[in-house]
């Protein structure tokens, strides 16, 4: 029976709960929107490649059949014009959420050029630390903000390709139909490049991937003094004085101190 277990857990956790409400690094609505977006992007890119193949922009580039969604062009189009609703509606929800909750302001700003350069340098020398998932470094901020802007641009150009006459005023800002196709394509390329980096880094730092599923560490501006021992699924932020002799890195706590317990 699970009743005794719960009983024994409750007094353990209760005192640790700060009087302020604890929030997860990635709140549930955000996680849901992230994974809906992942599925929508997957549909949009795969079907977009199928549509592209019917009249290529570059003679040297055809997407192989095993990578595209839809055996025939009309299936690719069907998927694309299905996925677009998910992508756009979910995207609007995400942007509204990010702005309304202040998440964008907190997580993506400020972006400082000096930090950006320094972080790129660290990354190239494999000196990046991932001890704190809750703060994005300058490169992450630039990439996340950049991909949001590209996402907006790809929707706008997509709208212009879908309705070049109904939205002729908007389409006219970009140029000819083929120019809009090219911009739409370049936005896709930028998103694919982002995904490659994003997924690679998420796999290199698995706790970040876990955090996007479980919500990650709690954040209320004042992390709990002790890791919550019962919740093993989420790597808790462990704030403890780093043993100075042991750590060569200047950036305090070890990322995986839970392992050592």
């Amino acid at each position: 029976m699970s009743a005794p277990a719960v009983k024994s857990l409750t007094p353990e956790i209760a005192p640790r709960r700060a009087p302020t409400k604890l929030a997860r690094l990635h709140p549930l609505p955000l996680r849901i929107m992230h994974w809906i977006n992942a599925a929508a992007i997957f549909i949009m890119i795969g079907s977009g490649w199928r549509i592209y193949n019917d009249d290529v922009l570059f003679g040297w580039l055809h997407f192989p059949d095993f990578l595209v969604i839809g055996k025939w062009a009309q299936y690719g189009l069907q998927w694309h014009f299905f996925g677009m609703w998910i992508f756009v509606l979910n995207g609007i929800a995400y942007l509204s959420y990010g702005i309304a909750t202040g998440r964008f302001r907190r997580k993506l700003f400020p972006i400082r050029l000096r930090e950006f350069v320094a972080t790129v340098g660290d990354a190239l020398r494999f000196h990046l630390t991932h001890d704190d998932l809750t703060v994005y470094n300058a490169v992450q901020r630039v990439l996340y903000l950049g991909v949001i802007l590209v996402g907006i641009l790809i929707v706008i150009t997509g709208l212009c390709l879908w309705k070049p006459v109904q939205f002729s005023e908007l389409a006219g800002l970009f140029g000819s139909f083929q120019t809009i196709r090219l911009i739409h394509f370049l936005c896709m390329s930028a998103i694919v490049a982002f995904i490659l980096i994003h997924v690679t880094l998420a796999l290199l730092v698995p706790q970040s991937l876990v955090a996007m599923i479980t919500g990650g560490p709690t954040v209320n501006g004042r992390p709990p003094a002790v890791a919550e021992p019962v919740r093993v699924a989420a790597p808790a932020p462990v704030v403890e004085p780093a043993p100075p002799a042991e750590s060569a890195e200047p950036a305090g706590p070890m990322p995986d101190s839970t392992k050592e317990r």
Partner: protein
Amino acid sequence: MSIRPVTPSLLRPHKPIDQSVSKQNRRRIETINRRGVLRGTLTLGALALLTGCDVSEEPSVQDALRAVSAWNDGAQAAIFRPDHLAPTFSPSQVVNPPRFNAYYDIQDVKPVDGAAWKLELAGLIKDQRPWTLQQIYQLPEQELIIRHICVEGWDYIGQWSGPNLRAFLTRIGADLTAKYVYFVCNDDFTESIDMASALHPQSILATKYAGAPITDPFGFPLRLRTAVKLGYKNAKWIRTIEVTNTFRPTFWSKQGENWFAGI
């Protein structure tokens, strides 16, 4: 057995889609799907494997996708601006000859005998007397220099002229409150457009391209040219015009292309 083209294209015949392979391999496809779903939940990379087998043709998936496509018809009708004009261009930008498109190759076009040809009228039209080509040539002409956009992604600027469709429908006493204008073509191609698009100021029954009669591959003697639809909606070699409230699937919509196809 016919051999399918390596790269499927709207411009090549790909009907009928051979369902036998899918039927023969039904069990295998189902197995792949189950496995695929499990795999897909694990990683994005594995998800990519799912596309290797095309789930689009699965009847349930196809039904769902077509339902969304039908819903998109309504969405497109809702945002359609009846009086908003498409951009027009100068004669110097016109591509001549125009680019060919049909569900077969250009050498398979069967020319229409203009002298024997008659335009038949049907449905919700008061005056259903057929029209000869000479009679149509007597009607006032409207010229459109507009962009043709193919669903495949290519486009060109063409110079079309002929009687305005709205004026023609009015003259023959068509019910302008009906829902659809349906075209049957000499190659048995069928296409229909919504009445709002038919009444758009830039919808014409084209008889000329760049000032000369349209040549055989491009729809001689009469074709639809509207600035508010994708290329494939512009029926060529028109034989019959019917005004109707009954929706009937058309050549491309039967293949899974979007019916409204507005631009």
